[in-house]
């Protein structure tokens, strides 16, 4: 599955390790929430970065204490219609200050990229090659945003007020 990061197709450095499968001696791994929570310390002690795949119906409370030691959190879109991971992403970024990689996995299509980046995702396991190729173009689609989210983009309302402010200051 192509991975888009920093706006570009990238090689995935993380190895998905299935539950029960043996961990490689070093290197970055991505494991399930169960596996991680069973013994977080052991995983984090091993050489190599650790990422966790967090299901979209699981409360983030169990994850929050480990955030500063995780290199990646992969949130799941079982279908592109299921938007629970958008809320999880915003909470991780905006409420809990998580600043590692936030990865979208599952049914990830180009038509969700804008929503996803706005919610805080910065890595995308994209389902179709063509969609991954179109990432940069898709991200240019919108220049106006109505609501504030943690991505820092200025809202239309704020732009209007700034404009008004500078107009009245100029008089």
């Amino acid at each position, binding site marked *: 599955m192509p991975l888009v990061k920093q706006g570009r197709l990238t090689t995935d450095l993380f190895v998905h390790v299935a539950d029960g499968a043996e961990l490689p001696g070093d290197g970055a791994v991505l494991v399930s929430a169960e596996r991680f929570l069973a013994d977080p310390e052991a995983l984090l002690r091993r050489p190599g970065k650790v990422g966790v795949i967090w299901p979209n119906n699981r409360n983030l409370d169990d994850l929050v204490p480990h955030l500063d030691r995780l290199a990646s959190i992969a949130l799941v879109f079982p279908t592109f219609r299921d938007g629970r991971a958008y809320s999880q992403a915003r909470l991780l970024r905006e409420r809990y200050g998580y600043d590692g990689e936030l990865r979208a996995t599952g049914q990830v299509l180009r*038509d969700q990229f804008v929503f996803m980046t706005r919610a805080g995702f910065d890595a995308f396991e994209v389902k179709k090659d063509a969609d991954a190729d179109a990432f940069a173009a898709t991200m240019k689609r919108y220049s*106006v945003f109505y609501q504030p989210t943690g991505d820092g983009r200025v809202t239309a309302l704020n732009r209007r007020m700034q404009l008004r402010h500078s107009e009245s200051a100029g008089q």
Partner: protein
Amino acid sequence: MYAYDELDRTLINERVSEFRDQVQRRLSGELTEDEFKILRLQNGVYLQLHAYMFRVAIPYGTLSSKQLRRFAHVARRYDRGYGHFTTRQNIQFNWIKLSELPDALADLAEVGIHAMQTSGNNMRNVTSDQWAGVAPGEIEDPRIWSELIRQHTTLHPEFSFLPRKFKIAITASEHDRAAIKIHDIGLRLHKNADGETGFEVLVGGGLGRTPFIAKTIKPFVPGRDILSYIEAILRVYNQYGRRDNIYKARIKILVHELGIEKFAKEVDEEWKQMGDVGLTLDHAAIEEVRSRFSYPAYEKLPHMPDELKQAAHDKLFERWRKNSVFPHKVQGYSIVVLSLKPVGGPPGDASAEQMDALADLADKYSFGEIRVGHEQNLALPHVAKRDLPALFKALDRLGLATPNVNLVTDIIACPGLDYCSLANARSIPVAQELTRRFANHDTADLIGRLHINISGCINACGHHHVGHIGILGVEKNGEEFYQITIGGRADENAQMGTLIGPAVPYAEVADVIEDIVEAYLALRDRPEELFVDTVKRLGVEPFRERVYATR
């Protein structure tokens, strides 16, 4: 009127270009129908019985004459010359080609109209009182808040893939014309003891398979906090709303399963934790939006102009005036409701010619403004009383002066089996037959205010649960049957109707309704007692008897 600025226009255009690309990818086969479905729904495009259906938003029911003219253009250029106004302050076109949809959207975008989120599992078009800004006694114009919420929820990155559709309605009047209690979130603007303006927030209302009246989750949320409070509700719903079963996915089910107290606690918890995330609306932000609403330069006019006194001798005019003309907050002006329910016509339809002509009348008599109400009627919100006689003549020529507003023939009906792929039964022909049965205006006038609502299936697009008389199409052994409920209402005292007995076949529906109405005329206390009030006083039993005694 709200004026879109460069930023709003840019966003709409960007949306059109995105959709053009999505349609292209569908037509080339790059997108599967399953993938495309949700994308087209987010742009108001349904696949219906005969063709694609296109649903366009009319935010809070306010239209300019220019925008109405553009609907006429879309009807003519891309459809079969008419449009259908719906109970959601939308207009639908039934016969548009998929390949032409992006062009139709682009034409609409030029006048600040879009179809974003008129369907799909996201925040739908925010609806409001169709008399907003002109109704006497309202707290303030609720459209300012509707617009703030419209903007906040448009292409919201967290709430565009909710468990199910989500509808917000707002009223600022004592008398609720926005049916807020049958919405996912209902907002009632009022002032608290300190004179501060804010909202009573209701949640979990809705019709369909499992109808619920919304419950109050918070009696008062200050205006400045309304966006963050709505965001908290939606976040709880997005995370905990059921996704395993589409019939149980609406917020009303979550509220029902948790109980309102527990749900309210969850929301409060979320709200508290949210802290300051830039959603608080300070005075400047509210004023920024308020400043882009413009209001007519009303003249100082007499309460009772000579033109009106003279016209009082014209019986037809008087009949229409009594029925269709309503008080305005400015002296000398009126709100004029235009019935889209002519005898024998499909409720809510307007032809391109009617739309064009009405746009001209709005320019001439109503400062270029038109309103769309959830009863599937239109209104001219600022008509000088002296112009009423001339306006009546012009409307009459257009077939828009049927004097039946709020009467028995002012029927709300969904498209039913004539257009809808989900229907079990026809709705439009039932409505047409009923308008013929009660065509005599004197009889209708004698009966007084009586709302009939018809849906062609359990989804309740025609609001049948809250009709004074509700008619619901069901299917039995391949035949159309109809369940009849009475005593429902959608106003500030909203209530679901009660079933009066077994469903009746298509051919008998009009007779049954006539029986119910006759029973009411015999049973009412006095002529002023409304049908719903008689039902409330006596219950359904006497009506049940009257209907089923001979069947």
